[in-house]
């Protein structure tokens, strides 16, 4: 070999030995970051606690938040009557608006969690149970089980099970349609979701009109646009249980979800099996969406807007994102429902119309922001 003697380069192997990580006082302002998240969670929790009694009080018969709290306290503790309120006010709080607001908060939180989970699963900011047809799947099978279940001897007890099965089946169908190799592009995912959603919407409406349901029109509205009007104390508590369970499970998987949101290889190199995690998260999300749809029909856009706003507040780390999104979703849906039942009173708007009016503009922004090369 010719020996050249240019000034460039340095001989191989002559590099200095390893400089291990040098820890300095620099901790990326760890304390500030942690406080920031807790402030958001505490602030939102406070906002939710104020929202609940205020929202219960709002309606054709206005009740002061203080009275709402007193009625609840008396009912829960069984203590002496400390304030003065009418029987109708008491039944509005305990039987009508109370369960409705409680259910609204649970559904909002659950939809936001489902949105966060599906977005991490697909690495796509447009993923959302409604837009991906998951909600429609749950609607179709729930409607079918209500309309024909009792005739077939299954009974409406199978409602939640049907909703879950429908959500899972629709989710899997959309993923299979959208998949190219192991990659899922935004365009294909949304197109697959919208087309599966359309088919299932049509199927739901067809089922309802084919049945002898005297209130067919209203049923269709319920399953496609959602409503909290059928809330009961039981359905609200059951939904809360499912949503809290979902939150705990997703929090347990928050680090793996962080890795999955970045990529399958990244997950693999951090000791996580992407396929197993994806399947587990999909099942949990479908369970959650199934329970929500069974109780409140198909409400769109909450799972799209709320995770996005939550990311603006606390960033993309799921440990922070999940609780903040759940709280934001709960507050958002309670107020959306207040709008739905008061803006055109005594007429009640389907809840999905309000969430779509609030959510669709954000969808425009996200679509504009999407990377054109994908």
């Amino acid at each position, binding site marked *: 070999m010719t020996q050249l003697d240019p000034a460039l*380069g340095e001989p191989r192997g002559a590099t200095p030995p*390893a*400089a291990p990580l040098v820890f300095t006082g620099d901790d*990326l302002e760890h304390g500030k970051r942690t406080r920031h998240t807790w402030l958001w969670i505490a602030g939102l929790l406070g906002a939710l606690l104020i929202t609940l009694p205020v929202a219960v009080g709002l309606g054709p018969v206005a009740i002061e938040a203080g009275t709402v709290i007193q009625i609840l306290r008396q009912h829960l503790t069984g203590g002496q009557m400390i304030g003065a309120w009418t029987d109708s006010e008491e039944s509005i709080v305990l039987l009508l608006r109370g369960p409705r607001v409680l259910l609204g908060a649970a559904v909002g939180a659950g939809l936001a969690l489902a949105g966060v989970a599906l977005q991490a699963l697909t*690495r796509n900011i447009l993923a959302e149970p409604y837009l991906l047809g998951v909600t429609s799947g749950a609607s179709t099978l729930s409607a079918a089980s209500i309309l024909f279940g009792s005739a077939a001897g299954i009974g409406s007890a199978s409602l939640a099970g049907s909703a879950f099965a429908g959500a899972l089946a629709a989710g899997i169908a959309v993923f299979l349609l959208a998949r190219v190799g192991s990659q899922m592009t935004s365009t294909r995912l949304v197109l697959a979701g919208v087309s599966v959603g359309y088919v299932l919407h049509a199927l739901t409406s067809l089922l309802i009109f084919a049945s002898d349901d005297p209130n067919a029109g209203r049923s269709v509205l319920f399953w496609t646009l959602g409503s909290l009007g059928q809330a009961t104390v039981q359905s609200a508590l059951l939904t809360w249980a499912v949503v809290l369970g979902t939150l705990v499970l997703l929090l347990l998987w928050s680090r793996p979800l962080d890795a999955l949101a970045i990529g399958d*290889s990244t997950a693999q190199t951090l*000791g996580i*099996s992407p396929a197993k995690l994806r399947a587990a998260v999909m099942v949990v999300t479908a369970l959650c969406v199934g329970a929500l749809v069974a109780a409140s029909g198909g409400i769109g856009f909450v799972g799209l807007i709320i995770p996005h706003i939550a990311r603006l507040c606390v960033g*993309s780390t799921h440990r922070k994102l999940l609780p903040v999104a759940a709280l934001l979703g709960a507050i958002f849906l309670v107020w959306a429902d207040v709008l739905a039942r008061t803006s055109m009173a005594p007429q009640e708007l389907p809840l999905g119309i309000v969430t779509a009016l609030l959510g669709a503009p954000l969808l425009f922004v996200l679509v504009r922001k999407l990377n054109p090369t994908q």
Partner: protein
Amino acid sequence: MITATDVSVGYGGKLVVKSVGLHAGQGEVVGLIGPNGSGKSTFLRTLYAALRPRAGLVTLDAQPLEELRGTELARRVAVVAQETPTDLPVTVADMVLLGRAPHRKALAAFTREDHQAVAAALSRVGARDLADRRYATLSGGEKQRVLVARTLAQQADHLLLDEPTNHLDIRYQHELLRMVGQLGVTTVVVLHDLNLAARYCTKLVMLENGQAVASGTPEEVLTPELLLRVYGIHVEPFSVRGALQLVFSMADEHSEPQSTAAVR
């Protein structure tokens, strides 16, 4: 120390890697080279258990890879893999913090020490000021540096890199590989560029159609005869301040050989 013995990998009925061996001793930088489709990346994936070999054994410090659980493996082997971009807005700090995940329990918060490790890792690659930027907005060179910072924060003593110099400007290619060499970590790196391989690797393994056709020092592996056979290209080797560098020419340019001072 990473040792692979007689590793074979297949997809479906086809073997893509056939009985390949590799040994990377403590602190060595071993380069995996070979033409497109020769099985480099596939073989690398077996070294961090992303693929299970059909036959053969991979050991990490003499311990078989399959005996190590996921997070345990992740604490000892860090990987910079080819990744498709995500739509989700992830900050650089979050990206590097992920390297700390194998060190923490599922529900445990990241500690001050974790954040210090991230700051130190980012400083080490000269990317501390990028901490709060969105990863997707970085240039190719900045992204690769951040990924290397994540492997540093992971504090694993083995490093695997899959074509880390892809899409990088020439300066960043050299910067990155020089930095990797200075880490003193046992490294296996898949490289396309033979001059980079010659300059920054202590040992090379050359693959062709899934088989190891040569291994040893760059001087032993990057011979004109072998490169002509495997890549179909003529090579004139030079020694530049102790490092082997190659000048390439197509076969049809070689009607007048020995036109330069190259001595074989």
